[in-house]
């Protein structure tokens, strides 16, 4: 079956084609086709994962790869292939599974969209193809193709309501913003790929990740600089796609799309691609023994800063979806932080040949990937819950909700489970991975390296973020589900249909329990993907993980912070014993305004792009009108005029034709004679 792994992304793309072309008359059918396709992909992905994990490739620490030569020009060839290891198995499993759930949910959520459903189901299927193709690609170029497919689909889906909708204008500008901002990252990424191609003469993971190859390239100053720049540029792509600071601001606006699309973007696809890319490029970062530390420090700093920066903006947002969007940003920051800190340790370990450090670094890698998996489940769940609420109340503003627990019991309970999970309530899935993330961030400080103090700050920021997370999630939950039913909540339709509530229940089970997987060898599987990409790590053991977590004082501190956060939210929004208005001077305080304005980032974007874009555009326009047009017009006039002359030669008289043939022969013969006589071209 492993040979057929390419079917995993092909099935959804087939659905895309079929739904797009043939479901014009009955768009409802499109939904079932998309679900079937995603489910088939999911089943296939499970079979393939099972087969890989029981195969000889896995037990001998190798990734399964297969490739066909796509194009070969001279000595330069580009392959198209598949690369299956522990990481890609996990990625394709959760992406296809959560997408299936979201598609099922869409049956209910999108049921009144009529003919537009065709477009919706076709596009989400293509979106899934992008993600699945990305995770099994065997080289960077192929990965980039799928990366761009996702970029396109996210644009189309965020702008799903760009037509016939009261807020069409804002919707379409949100879509454009998402596209253009992520494009900044994409440009960096492809720049990085060009450098890698130049340096390594190949973009295959297999060729790039061989430790010898990287060492051979980085043995001189020039090579080190190139690889370092390429690493930064690749991470630039991650910043765009995974919405890290400073390219984070498209994600809150991307809430303009249907909630299912948000769930898809945040849980199963799109933003996870960036984290995946960071994890996939790990060997490239850590084997760069000269500058790798700086790269990874940068990654860690961006992640840690994004975590708290985004969490702070969620504190006072009134839009249920935007709170979730900011929380995604902050959780993505966690993942990047864990990867950065782990990579930093590993890089130092490889440089000094210290195996203990390498293993410690690997646990940071595991933490990042593990948190991505858990986040996929609980964020998917939370978004679908918020969709369910929006579906029955008709608003996204939490000030108009409240008291929904009585009318929507399933939604409220599942959302509570999701919130507990993301807040890191003990034994829920978020708890395990968040703790590992924080531990990973603390690692470099504990070991006391040059930049250890920076990571200490990041660790403290992470702790504060944990507190904020608990607070804003429960602020959202209390505002939505308990207390007095306000305006829209009063005429809510009640619980959503079965097609929506069943996925909620299924996902909530995963959101609660997926963390336990770490006790049953998930860490081993993730660690194995490091080993198969050539890094010499000892095998990961989950034996005493419980001990490590619970014997660490920071665990208790983070639990305490989470509980305090929940408690404060309870006091403020349920008991109403603390009036939030006192803290923020009824919304007039500077900090409150700053947060509500998203640190003025939308304006900053507008100003930069307007100033920069318009300035550049004016210069280009001038150049275009005067230089390019002048040349082109002059040239084209010359061509057309000469064409007219030549057309006159085509007189239509056969005698002229014959004459030109004879003239041609005479000219050619005399040219050849001349060449011989001057002797210019004797064999070189």
């Amino acid at each position, binding site marked *: 079956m492993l040979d057929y792994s390419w079917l995993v992304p092909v099935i959804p793309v087939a659905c895309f084609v079929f739904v797009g072309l043939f479901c014009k008359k009955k768009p409802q059918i499109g939904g079932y086709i998309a679900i079937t396709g995603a489910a088939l992909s999911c089943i296939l992905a499970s079979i393939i994962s099972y087969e890989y994990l029981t195969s000889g490739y896995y037990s001998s620490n190798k990734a399964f790869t297969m490739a066909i030569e796509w194009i*070969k020009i001279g000595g330069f060839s580009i392959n198209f292939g598949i690369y299956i290891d522990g990481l890609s198995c996990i990625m394709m499993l959760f992406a296809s599974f959560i997408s299936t759930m979201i598609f099922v949910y869409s049956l209910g959520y999108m049921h009144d969209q009529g003919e537009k459903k065709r477009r919706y189901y076709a596009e989400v299927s293509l979106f899934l193809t992008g993600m699945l193709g990305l995770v099994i690609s065997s080289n960077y170029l192929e990965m980039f193709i799928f990366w761009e497919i996702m970029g396109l689909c996210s644009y189309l889906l965020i702008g799903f309501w760009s037509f016939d909708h009261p807020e069409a204008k804002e919707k379409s500008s949100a879509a454009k913003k998402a596209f253009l901002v992520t494009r900044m990252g994409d440009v960096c990424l492809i720049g990085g790929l060009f450098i890698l191609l130049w340096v390594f003469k190949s973009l295959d993971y297999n060729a790039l990740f061989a430790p010898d190859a990287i060492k051979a390239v980085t043995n001189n100053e020039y090579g080190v600089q190139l690889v370092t720049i390429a690493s930064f540029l690749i991470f630039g792509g991650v910043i765009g796609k995974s919405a890290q600071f400073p390219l984070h601001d498209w994600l809150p606006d991307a809430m303009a799309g249907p909630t299912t699309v948000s769930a898809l973007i945040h849980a199963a696809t799109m933003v996870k691609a960036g984290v995946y890319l960071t994890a996939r490029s790990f060997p490239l970062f850590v084997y760069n023994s000269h500058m790798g530390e700086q790269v990874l420090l940068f990654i860690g700093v961006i992640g840690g800063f994004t975590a708290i920066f985004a969490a702070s903006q969620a504190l006072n947002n009134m839009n249920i979806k935007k709170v979730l969007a900011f929380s995604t940003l902050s959780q993505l920051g966690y993942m990047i932080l864990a990867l950065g800190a782990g990579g930093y340790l590993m890089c130092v370990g490889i440089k000094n040949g210290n195996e203990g450090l390498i293993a410690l670094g690997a646990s940071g890698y595991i933490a990042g990937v593990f948190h991505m998996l858990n986040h996929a489940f609980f964020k998917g769940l939370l978004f679908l819950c918020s969709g369910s609420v929006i579906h029955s109340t008709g608003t996204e503003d939490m000030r108009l909700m409240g008291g929904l627990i009585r009318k929507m019991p399933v939604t409220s309970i599942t959302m509570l489970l999701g919130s507990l999970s993301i807040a890191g309530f003990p034994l829920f899935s978020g708890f395990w991975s968040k703790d590992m993330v924080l531990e990973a961030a603390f690692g470099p400080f504990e070991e006391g390296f040059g930049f250890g103090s920076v990571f200490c700050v990041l660790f403290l920021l992470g702790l504060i973020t944990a507190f904020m997370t608990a607070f804003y999630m429960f602020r959202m939950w209390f505002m939505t589900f308990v207390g007095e039913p306000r305006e829209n909540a009063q005429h809510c339709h009640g619980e959503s249909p079965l097609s929506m509530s069943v996925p909620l229940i299924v996902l909530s089970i995963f959101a609660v329990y997926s963390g336990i997987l770490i006790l049953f060898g998930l860490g081993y599987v993730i660690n194995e993907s490091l080993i198969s990409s050539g890094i010499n790590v000892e095998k990961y053991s989950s034996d005493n993980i419980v001990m490590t977590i619970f014997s660490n004082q920071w665990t208790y501190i983070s639990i305490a912070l989470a509980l305090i956060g929940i408690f404060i939210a309870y006091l403020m929004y349920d008991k109403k014993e603390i009036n939030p208005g006192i803290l923020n001077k009824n919304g007039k305080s500077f900090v409150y305004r700053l947060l509500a304005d998203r640190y003025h980032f939308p304006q900053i974007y507008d100003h930069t792009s307007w100033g920069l874009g318009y300035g550049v555009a004016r210069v280009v326009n001038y150049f275009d009108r005067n230089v390019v047009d002048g040349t082109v017009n002059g040239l084209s006039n010359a061509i057309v005029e000469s064409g007219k002359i030549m057309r006159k030669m085509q007189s239509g008289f056969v005698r002229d034709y014959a004459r030109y043939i004879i003239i041609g022969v005479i000219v050619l*013969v005399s040219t050849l004679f001349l060449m011989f006589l001057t002797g210019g*071209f004797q064999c070189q």
Partner: protein
Amino acid sequence: MKMIELAFLNDTFGTMLAIMPEIMLIIGALSIPGLFYFTKNKNMCATAALIAIILSGVFAGCVILDSTLSCTFMNIFKLDMFAAVMIFLFLIVAFLTVLASFASSELSNHVSEYYSLLLIATTGMLFVASANNLLVIFVGVECTSILSYALVALKKNDPRSSEAAVKYLIIGGISSGLVLYGISMLYGLTGSIDIAKIAHGLENMENLNAPFVIAVISLIAGYGFKISAVPFHMWAPDAYEGAATPVSMFLSTGSKKMGFVVLFKIFIVMFAVEQSVYAVEEMRYIFAFIATITMTIGNIVAILQKNIKRMLAYSSIAQAGYILIALAVMSEYAVTGGIFHMITHVFMKGGAFIVVGALIAAGIKENISDYKGLAKRAPIVAFAMLLFLFSLAGIPPLAGFASKFVLFSSAIVIDGVVRTQWMWLAIIAIINSAISLYYYAKVVKVMYIDSGECNEKIVIKKSHLVAILLCMVFVVAIGVYPEPIIKFCEGASGILFGKC
């Protein structure tokens, strides 16, 4: 290259295998008039022609897949990888032509004669592909030429058709004369008409040799007429415009390729392979010169054309200029590119001609301005035309891009090293591609942006649609995944350079 084991064919047919493709076509051509006499059914004739082509293609295909099958018949015909690939190419052309003729409105009542002539003309091409002797090549070319004069004249109700045929005939006659003159000169010089032996005979020559110069230039001029290289191209636009569209397509994609096969056979074998260093560089510059003026004049004059068939004719001339790069560079990789471009050209130019033919059958005239609003009236056909034209212009990811890429890059990278010798040729070719985009895009603009007076849907006949879709699939598939086709082309050009 050996992909499957087919040795039993050798046991069954012996050396006859070398001419089995031709035999199949001849059987088909001879039985079609009889079939028509008894059944009076037009479609029956077309089907018979298709069957003959497919049977013939099976033999060629077997040799492509298992090149150990290659064999020689009576020292004249050699069916090797190169011949097999070319035969397959010609058969595809014939196949598409028959498909396009099924529902064509331009052919008069001489249906059985038409298909017969077509098959025999194809047979002539097949002979050329497998011949290794100048006289046999000459006979093969004449066989195709004479029948194509008749094919051009077949549209009897249109005076343009007869005029074109007469012009074609006269120019063709002059060219045949030149070719024969050249062959006789070479025979006089070397005492042989076998290409390999001629190459040997040239080895000892030095300095200026007037008979040699006249001989090669006569050959180039004579076959330059077939490939419509400037300045021997002038018949082409008239003939393409006057002939029925399937015939124009046959001439532009098939008969032109035959000219290239001859030039490859003669000049690659004569100069590059046998290491006869005599005059190689001079010949390369002659070809580079012809390539340059051919593509430039073809593209520039195409801009001014108002009739789509004439426009396609000039674009065909320009494409011939691109392929001539292979003869100027004379490296194995360049010839691979040349063969590859010949293959992709069949699908994109053939597809464009079929679209024109299908639209004529549906009552749309031949002027570009008649295509206004076509995108609304016939969306599939308009989209197909867009693909073909963009492919001709060399826009990725279509087939034309892939083949142009290989061809042009062969002028820059020679034997794996970047050389400056032919870089100017590649640059001229690229500039020409840019110019050509103008007139291709103009047609697309007329189809998609300009609105026409009439908005009725156009009904396209099924057989036309099948042919168009076939070309479309190949244009896209080759563009996306060119590697397998390039492999075959490499095999074919390897044979020319004497590798087995």
